[in-house]
């Protein structure tokens, strides 16, 4: 059981805010931290790791990591940390990166075989692809058999195929080691696949938490489906108007009426939804 009750003043780029988090995490839980950038997710991870100080308390099982009197050094907290930019030791081979944490060759080769890195164990990080680097980072973080694994947007720099592969490997590792995990992520599908609970931060406080299914699946009204996207262009073809909308990585063309064309501006955030056969398009957030 991890108990977190911390307060920390943050001097952000836009305005100062108070990070105020009260959270309990069960042993073996996989928690996703979500929220817009600047909401305090990374700071929370850094406070948990002991890189930054805060007021309040953190206790893990019976061990006190932070209270009014003590601040346990990062070296003494049983944590693993996976950074977004991998942060591998470039002067060491893959295997040496793992053994640097703990001289346990059996564990190292076991982790490398789970992540299919055994053949690359003597390579240096500079010669690896992004996906391979992040797998090494993941193995390195697991080497200390941490009580708590912290991951700061670990997969955001990878392409979608590699992301899916790594998500499976994270799941395998989580099942095998039963480590408690806190992962910062913006990707709903990633959160849905991995996490058992999601916590949404805004302006330094928790605004929503629950099962990923309940938090992520928010459909309003009676639409059969709806996607939000960005309006890229409106073309007039003969008598009809065609709107080009970017939904995620995909561009779609939608036929719209002249009235709709008048009311929409290029750059608007739009929601594309359909009831039965007629797709509807309406503005959710004007560009200006």
């Amino acid at each position: 059981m991890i108990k977190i009750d911390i307060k920390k003043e943050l001097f952000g780029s836009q305005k100062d805010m108070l990070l105020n988090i009260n959270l309990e995490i069960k042993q073996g839980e996989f928690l996703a931290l979500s929220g817009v950038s600047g909401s305090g997710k990374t700071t929370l991870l850094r406070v948990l790791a002991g890189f930054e100080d805060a007021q309040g308390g953190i206790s893990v099982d019976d061990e006190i990591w932070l209270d009014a009197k003590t601040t346990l050094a990062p070296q003494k907290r049983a944590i693993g940390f996976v950074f977004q930019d991998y942060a591998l030791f470039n002067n060491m081979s893959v295997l040496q990166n793992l053994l640097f944490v703990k001289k346990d060759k059996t564990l190292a080769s076991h982790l490398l075989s789970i992540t299919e890195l055994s053949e690359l164990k003597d390579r240096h990080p500079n010669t690896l692809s992004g996906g391979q680097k992040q797998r090494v980072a993941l193995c390195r973080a697991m080497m200390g058999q941490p009580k708590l694994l912290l991951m700061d947007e670990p997969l955001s720099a990878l392409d979608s195929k590699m992301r899916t592969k790594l998500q499976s490997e994270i799941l395998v590792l989580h099942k095998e080691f039963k480590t408690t995990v806190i992962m910062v992520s913006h990707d709903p599908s990633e959160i849905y696949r991995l996490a058992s609970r999601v916590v949404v931060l805004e302006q330094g406080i928790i605004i929503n938490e629950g099962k990923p299914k309940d938090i992520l699946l928010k459909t309003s009204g009676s639409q059969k489906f709806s996607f939000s996207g960005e309006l890229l262009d409106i073309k007039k073809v003969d008598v009809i108007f065609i709107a080009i909308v970017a939904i995620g990585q995909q561009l779609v063309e939608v036929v719209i009426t002249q009235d709709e064309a008048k009311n929409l501006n290029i750059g608007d955030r739009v929601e594309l939804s359909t009831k039965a056969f007629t797709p509807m398009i309406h503005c959710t957030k004007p560009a200006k």
Partner: protein
Amino acid sequence: MLEALSTLELTPFVLSFKLAGLTTIILFILCLPFAWWLSQTSSKSKPIFEAITALPLVLPPSVLGFYILVILSHNSPVGAFFDEYFGIKLVFNFSGLVIASCFYSLPFMVQPLQSGFASINKNMLEASYIAGKSKTQTVFRVALPNMKPAVMTAIIVSFAHTVGEFGVVLMLGGSIPGETKVASVAIYEMVEIMDYTNAHIYSAIMLLISFSVLLSVYIFNQKTKAIGQFR
């Protein structure tokens, strides 16, 4: 010319390189923790220390030499203390030169090391702390191996700069043969007595050595960079 070469007195060169070698070793040991602290601290006093470190870059060597002379001479508390308790005189001998050179070459050791440390990915250092490694272990096993060009530059440039020292040496060491008469001072004296042949030989040797030292640094740095890119 040949005759001059065969009777060439090498002691000033030996002295120059001995001085530079010792200075570099002492500076490296002393500056490593200092440069690390400068690179990691957000203390308000940091600019003060940075300014003091950079002073030898802008001060005339005579000013630097004068103050060191005043502080170390046996009339000052520091000089008197060393003379009385250890029987060591700190001016007009080799140990005085080493102390003066350490001040003179300070920025050339501190600045490359500091920027080297600053260039290391902070997350990499934090990953090492999480792995349970202390700051000292992190410096030696993670930071330094990942900033070889900076270490190389610091060492070589400090060495070369000390070899090229003149004003401070003259102020502090005088020109005692075999003790404080380094190559640069020897050349100065040769020109003074219009012994141009030997001045030429000495100067050419200095020029050649300095150039090859610098060339090797730049070749090393280019190679390390290339390895970093293509590995």
